[in-house]
């Protein structure tokens, strides 16, 4: 039930480029533009409707310095609580697993255990320490992740990891929910005489008034 990575871009178009002007050059690639990063997005059977990709993975070849900002909503989702705890105790991460379909928010202890199980399973597939895996979820509030579907899809997701533009694009599409466009940007510039790249992807369309810390 996993769609091919190269089919992902057929689902929704990319957002128009809204990059501020500056001493940088926009380049293709999103989260995979920077050296050392791979990404993938596949359909893992989590969405209630359709077969748009719903499972994304961003992985780094080395331990990366990690930072996170998270909602200050007291009713924080299980993956938010999980990541906050992880980043309080570690400055490094190697992978970010993201699902669309279920937000795993307001799901109590069972939802938190689902997050741990997903992180542990991915760490095993990538041969990493489990505290190197971070999790993000989006979708319907009050629903736990379709964990069995997610775990079944992990081998395919890991096999699909790619440092290409297509890898970044498929991941950007897989994290969308009610979004009409996918959001992915990368830039290149020189810092101290060395070329560096910064890239990213995001999702969001409704329930948007972030207040992260």
């Amino acid at each position, binding site marked *: 039930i996993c769609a091919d990575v190269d089919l992902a871009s057929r689902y929704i178009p990319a*957002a128009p*480029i*809204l*990059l*501020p002007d*500056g001493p940088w050059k926009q380049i293709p690639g999103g*989260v995979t*533009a*920077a*050296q050392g*990063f791979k990404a993938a997005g596949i359909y893992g059977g989590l969405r209630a409707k359709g077969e748009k990709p719903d499972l994304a993975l961003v992985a*780094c070849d*080395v331990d990366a*310095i*990690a*930072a996170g*900002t*998270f*909602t*200050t*909503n007291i009713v*924080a*989702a299980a*993956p*938010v609580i999980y990541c906050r705890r992880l980043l309080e105790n570690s400055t490094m991460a190697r992978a*970010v697993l*993201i699902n669309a379909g279920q*937000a795993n*928010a307001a799901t109590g202890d069972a939802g938190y255990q689902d997050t741990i199980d997903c992180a542990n399973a991915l760490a095993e597939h990538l041969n990493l320490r489990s505290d190197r895996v971070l999790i*993000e979820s*989006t979708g*319907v*509030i*009050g629903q736990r992740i379709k964990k069995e579907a997610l775990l079944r899809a992990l081998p395919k997701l890991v096999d699909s990891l790619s440092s290409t533009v297509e890898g970044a694009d498929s991941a950007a599409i897989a994290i969308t929910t009610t979004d009409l466009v996918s*959001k992915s*940007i990368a*830039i290149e*510039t*020189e*810092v*101290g005489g*060395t*070329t*560096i790249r*910064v*890239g*990213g*992807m*995001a*999702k*969001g*369309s*409704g*329930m*948007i*008034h*972030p*207040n*992260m*810390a």
Partner: protein
Amino acid sequence: TMLGVITTDALVASNIWREMVRISVNRSFNQITVDGDTSTNDSVIALASGISGSNKISSFDNYEAHQLQACLDAVMQGLAKSIAWDGEGATCLIEVHVTGAKNETDAAKIARSVASSSLAKAAVYGRDPNWGRIACAAGYAGVDFDLNELQILLGDIPLMSKGQPLPFDRVAASDYLRQAGQTHGTVEIHISIGNGQGSSKGWGCDLSYDYVKINAEYTT
């Protein structure tokens, strides 16, 4: 919900990277709004692989740190604006630029207050150059400023100066809003509140009938 993943191959110390991410998030994702609802899941995770071969950035007190911060700001603002542009039911992006504040924080509060105003957003959807609703939202932002210094422009059309409403071409102002809506473009609102050095931007979108339709059908 908004989610983000940011990557770079720059080499940067952990404490500096975390502070840079905090600053950029405050200048980007924390300055957008679509509907005023703060999600349970909002997250931005930023990873720095360090394998570009660049010198390690270990302090804010150097040019390289400012360059990387500017790049991070740009990528996050680009993504944040895309989210506001894609707001549920939206026909246009609203960019609010505030200048003349005492500091960046005050300017940011006013920008987001205006971008968040349901009445200002509905006016934009109605193609109504309603300077009163913009001024109102600036006034309740929680920032002290002199009303007699308030200036408002819609695009390049002055609507208010020194706290006084100005005569303006209502048809042209309405056409500016209509054009943005028809092309899913950007409506720019410029607000000045004084002579301070603080400036900031906030982003939102107009409020249409479709927003209610989408969320009446998307269950929790």
